[in-house]
């Protein structure tokens, strides 16, 4: 393609980085926020601001509540479009409860069988409920958990569910991230020598490139492993071998697994009551303790509900290690006796578990979680500085030739960086402002997110004309000030609407809310600092817009890049 390997890698890095960088910003930023998704949930749903606790008693509390779960309306609609008419009540297949050491509320799930689908005998729909485990109250459906139900899915699916298009786009972005890292290493001649090089006092193009290289290289293992592990988590979507070419083998394997476990693959169709699940939990915990890994229940599943073939699987919460849940113990439903205790995973399964658990981080390790946030934010800085470098490098040439490419890239960069932050902040502000019992509250909040982002885009497009004269767009500074305004407003609104002001939450060491309020204030501080810095730079650029940056003789790879725009 190009004359040399380095040139072709430069082309790849520049153009794929530019196009997919916008998606990667979303993945990295909301991925970083997802580290503290449950804490954000606490901020957004004030009635859940109490301490996490282990899973409550199944027999006493959960059993009657499970019976209340009904299929989700939108899933029923989709099912009707697949099979036509549905039975008035769908038989329930299984129930599940999932909790981690950070969950004060408990999520309950149910799967309901759709029996009249000729193409897919295992077709099913889902239902879910959230309860307060202190007293069994079912929490209102419409209270959007902004962290775990919005920011978190946004980072892997872009909320583009149609044909799972969002998942595929993020997957492409992840592949491009890995390719950008590889090509970046190829491009960067003195990668070890310049590992610590950051010269903020130099002209913009140099300092931006320094920062891009720094954040890309020092966090390279993080960026690479997160892109790779993200892809392997959803490998079933991207490489659906078990549903296509190897369907018989996958099916045979599942049946053989069930046989090894001593459980039935399908229900018998004969009703039978369930033995005491609480007793099963006690036994499971005893067995984990005996293996030297005492722990709490992380995941509990009742399979083939109400059937004589029913069995209960109890998984240990992996709070002390990287793997998510594991060491399952399976019990026969009607009798309550242990039928199978899972052995340690095979080498391959172990590696898979490790990568999944590494990415999803449900472990209890606050330092490591904060390191994850650092890694995520370094990724954001890497991508953002990539955009800035692209614009800085080309805007003088574009200004002198009358091309407007740099301007549009800059406007899109503003939208992807500060615009994205503004969207998230707007959602939080609206969350505090709307009345608690408003119908469709969740939809209003989501609407606010997208609307704010579109507004940020329009503002950026409007306020980026100076880039065409090789100056700095005021859009950056203005959106920084908007970030300051919204972030501080969010903290104040939390105080006004819930009474949980910073001193109160710090005083009783309620870190989910105190931490998030502090994070909002720090963000406001950084945005203000950036806005003031930008004002100074804008003045400089206004004074000498088309002046070439003075390249001082250095010992670094300041050699002009071989590929032009």
């Amino acid at each position, binding site marked *: 393609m190009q004359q040399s390997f380095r040139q072709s890698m430069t082309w790849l890095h520049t153009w794929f980085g530019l196009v997919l960088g916008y998606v990667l910003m979303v993945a990295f930023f909301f991925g970083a926020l997802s580290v503290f998704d449950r804490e954000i949930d606490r901020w957004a749903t004030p009635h859940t601001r109490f301490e996490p606790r282990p899973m409550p008693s199944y027999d006493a509390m959960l059993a009657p509540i499970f019976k209340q779960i009904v299929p989700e309306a939108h899933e029923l609609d989709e099912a009707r479009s697949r099979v036509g008419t549905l039975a008035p009540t769908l038989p329930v297949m299984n129930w599940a409860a999932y909790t981690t050491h950070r969950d004060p509320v408990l999520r309950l799930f149910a799967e309901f069988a759709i029996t009249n689908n000729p193409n897919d005998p295992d077709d099913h729909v889902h239902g879910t409920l959230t309860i307060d485990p202190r007293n069994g109250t079912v929490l209102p459906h419409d209270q959007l958990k902004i962290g775990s139900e919005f920011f978190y899915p946004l980072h892997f699916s872009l909320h583009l569910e149609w044909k799972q298009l969002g998942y595929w786009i993020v997957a492409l972005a992840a592949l491009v991230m890995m390719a950008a890292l590889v090509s970046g290493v190829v491009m960067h001649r003195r990668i070890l*020598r310049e*590992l*610590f*090089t*950051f*010269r*903020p*006092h130099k002209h913009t193009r140099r300092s931006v490139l320094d920062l891009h290289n*720094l*954040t890309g290289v*020092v*966090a390279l*293992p*993080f960026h690479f492993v997160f892109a790779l592990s993200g892809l392997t988590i959803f490998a079933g979507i991207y490489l659906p071998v078990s549903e296509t070419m190897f369907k018989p083998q996958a099916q045979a394997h599942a049946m053989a697994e069930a046989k090894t476990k001593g459980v039935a693959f399908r229900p018998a169709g004969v009703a039978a009551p369930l033995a005491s699940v609480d007793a099963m939990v006690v036994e499971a915990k005893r067995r984990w303790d005996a293996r030297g890994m005492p722990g709490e229940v992380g995941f509990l599943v009742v399979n083939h509900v109400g059937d004589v073939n029913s069995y209960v699987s109890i998984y240990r919460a992996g709070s*002390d*290690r*990287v*793997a998510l849940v594991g060491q399952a113990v399976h019990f026969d439903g009607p009798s309550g006796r242990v039928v199978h205790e899972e052995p340690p995973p095979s080498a391959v399964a172990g590696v898979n578990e*490790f990568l999944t*658990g*590494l990415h999803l981080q449900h*472990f209890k*390790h606050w*330092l*490591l979680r904060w*390191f*994850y946030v*650092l*890694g995520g934010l*370094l990724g954001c800085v890497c991508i953002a500085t990539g955009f800035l470098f692209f614009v800085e490098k080309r805007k003088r040439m574009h200004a002198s030739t009358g091309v407007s490419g740099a301007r549009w890239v800059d406007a899109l960069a503003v939208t992807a960086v500060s615009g994205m932050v503004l969207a998230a902040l707007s959602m939080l502000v609206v969350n505090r402002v709307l009345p608690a019992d408003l119908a469709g509250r969740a939809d209003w909040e989501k609407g606010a997110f997208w609307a704010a982002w579109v507004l940020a885009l329009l503002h950026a497009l409007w306020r980026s004309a100076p880039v065409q004269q090789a100056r700095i767009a005021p859009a950056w500074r203005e959106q920084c000030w908007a970030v300051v305004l919204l972030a501080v407003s969010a903290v104040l609104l939390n105080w006004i609407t819930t009474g949980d002001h910073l001193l109160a939450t710090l005083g009783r060491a309620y870190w989910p809310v105190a931490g998030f309020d502090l994070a909002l204030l720090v963000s406001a501080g950084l945005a203000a600092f950036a806005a003031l810095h930008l004002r100074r730079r804008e003045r400089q650029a206004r004074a000498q817009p088309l002046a070439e940056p003075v390249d001082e003789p250095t*010992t670094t790879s300041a050699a002009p890049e071989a590929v032009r725009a």
Partner: protein
Amino acid sequence: MPDAALGALLLSAAVALAVCGMVWLALTMDTHWQQVRVDAAPTRSATVALRLCGSLALFASLLLCLRADHPTMAPLVWVLSITGAAVGVAFALAWRPRWLALLVVWLPAGRSAN
């Protein structure tokens, strides 16, 4: 000492060692040495000492991480400590290089600038 407090102490020490290690490794390079000290470059023996101390500090950091946590988590903590340390050192070199002088005060004066 309760487990949590011991863990916190071990991890603090691990992070501190990671920072020291990265500082020492960074200062084997003339450009960065010049930012921190008056002399133009470290002596040859100082460079060797810096590399040795830097590597040992990073290795010691890994050992402390392994002592503090489950073996699946410790390497993650270690790698990310190094990442954080590298960023910190880069920023310090950019804005407050003299702060790092303390870590090499024990090294002799190197070759002076010509």
